């Protein structure tokens, strides 16, 4: 079990910077994120894109901004639970919330800061009838253990790096592997594309381009997938496993079940301190909404800064908070006990 002062849900830029501002008040933070690395959208969607509206940086790559934030908050030694989804949140005492992740990690804190951005990044599921029925019975959205696919017939769908990489990786493990993609060109790294083309030429994989999966067949378990080829029409491919790899997309997810006032997939907050309707729970960054809301990283930084002041008063109602500038004592002046 992990205990902290502020449990931050979402390790995007806003959640990360909040660690810094909380640290100045000697509040410890722990962050939970479903993605395996910190940075949220910046890492997952646009790490190589320049951002031009971070004060003091005429231009900074999204990935660099995340690296800088990690360096900036390092003195405050935040805890991280990455690759796990914040699942259930319960009030378990006076000023105590208990969060359990989908992998069973338990974290307790008096204050929750939801910095969930656009929500939980989840695999994009193709709109095929019966898809959910075959989940765990032949349909997988990620490859956890390649051995599962040894000597099996596999159909992978998608045209990006993960589709290409897993096709290459599983080619030597699976009995037969087919890759279906809607275009004849791929967007993945060039050497992966070359490798897949070589495997196809050598007859080691079945490459089905200009085609899309349109139907799943089977009673209990998945038995075959029907694909629609641009010229050849419908083709039935017998499979043990179908692995659609179409990237990740954010969904609001379990946050919707936590008793918070939600308007259009965003959490309503009071702009005085970004508190929600539940005392002790705050929402900052892209996940919140209020009159005049702008989804900007710099606004999220401001919201996190204001929020930790309120969180301090909530945790320690009797203590007086004296505001200090980092320019006076440096960050060391705040980290030293």
């Amino acid at each position, binding site marked *: 079990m992990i205990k902290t002062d502020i449990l931050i849900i979402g390790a995007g830029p806003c959640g990360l910077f909040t660690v810094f501002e909380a640290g100045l008040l000697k509040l410890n933070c722990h962050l939970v994120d479903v993605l395996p690395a910190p940075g949220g959208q910046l890492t997952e969607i*646009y790490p190589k*894109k320049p951002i031009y509206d971070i004060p003091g940086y005429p231009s900074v790559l999204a990935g660099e901004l995340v690296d800088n934030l990690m360096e900036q908050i390092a003195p405050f030694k935040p805890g991280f639970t990455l690759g796990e989804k914040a699942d259930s949140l319960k009030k378990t005492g006076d000023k105590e919330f208990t969060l359990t992740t989908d992998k069973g990690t338990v974290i307790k804190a008096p204050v929750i800061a939801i910095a969930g951005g656009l929500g939980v990044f989840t695999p994009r599921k193709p709109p095929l009838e019966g898809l959910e029925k075959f989940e765990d019975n032949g349909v997988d959205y990620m490859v956890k253990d390649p051995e599962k696919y040894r000597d099996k017939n596999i159909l992978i769908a998608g*045209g990006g790096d993960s589709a290409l990489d897993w096709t290459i990786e599983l080619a030597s493990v699976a009995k037969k592997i087919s890759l279906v993609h809607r275009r004849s060109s791929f*967007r993945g790294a060039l050497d992966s594309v070359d490798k897949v083309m070589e495997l196809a030429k050598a007859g080691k994989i079945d490459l089905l381009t200009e085609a899309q999966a349109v139907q799943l067949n089977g009673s209990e378990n998945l038995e075959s997938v029907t694909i629609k080829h641009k010229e050849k029409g419908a083709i039935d491919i017998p499979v043990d496993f179908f692995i659609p790899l179409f990237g990740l997309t954010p969904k609001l997810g379990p946050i919707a079940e936590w008793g918070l006032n939600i308007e259009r997939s965003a959490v309503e907050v009071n702009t005085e301190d970004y508190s929600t309707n539940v005392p002790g729970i705050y929402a900052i960054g892209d996940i919140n909404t209020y009159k005049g809301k702008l989804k900007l990283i710099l606004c999220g930084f401001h919201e996190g800064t204001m929020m930790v002041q309120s969180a301090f008063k909530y945790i320690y109602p009797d203590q007086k908070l004296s505001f200090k500038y980092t320019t006076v004592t440096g960050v060391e002046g705040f980290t030293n006990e």
Partner: protein
Amino acid sequence: MSENIHIKVKDREGNLHELEAPTDMNLNLMEVLKAHELPVEGTCGGMALCASCHCYVISDHDLNDPSDDEEDMLDQAFFVEDNSRLSCQIKIKESLDGLDVELAPV
């Protein structure tokens, strides 16, 4: 001041919407759809980095060909047809008056 253009949009329930859009504000179609509260996510903000503003272009207006980035993202969309586009990559300009689009299913 330049003229506004008119755009026809069929939403996912089959309802028709007539939108008016200014051509002098450097808007893209995704932004216009969102401004009219049509159910388009535009998650990435218009960088052709998600596929949440996928639409079909029904009219035969002369549009720029999709960039590689846009094609790459369409690979992650579903129900992709030959007339599929990411609406964030369609710049609103005078020659698009009368544009007719349909929102793709999600």
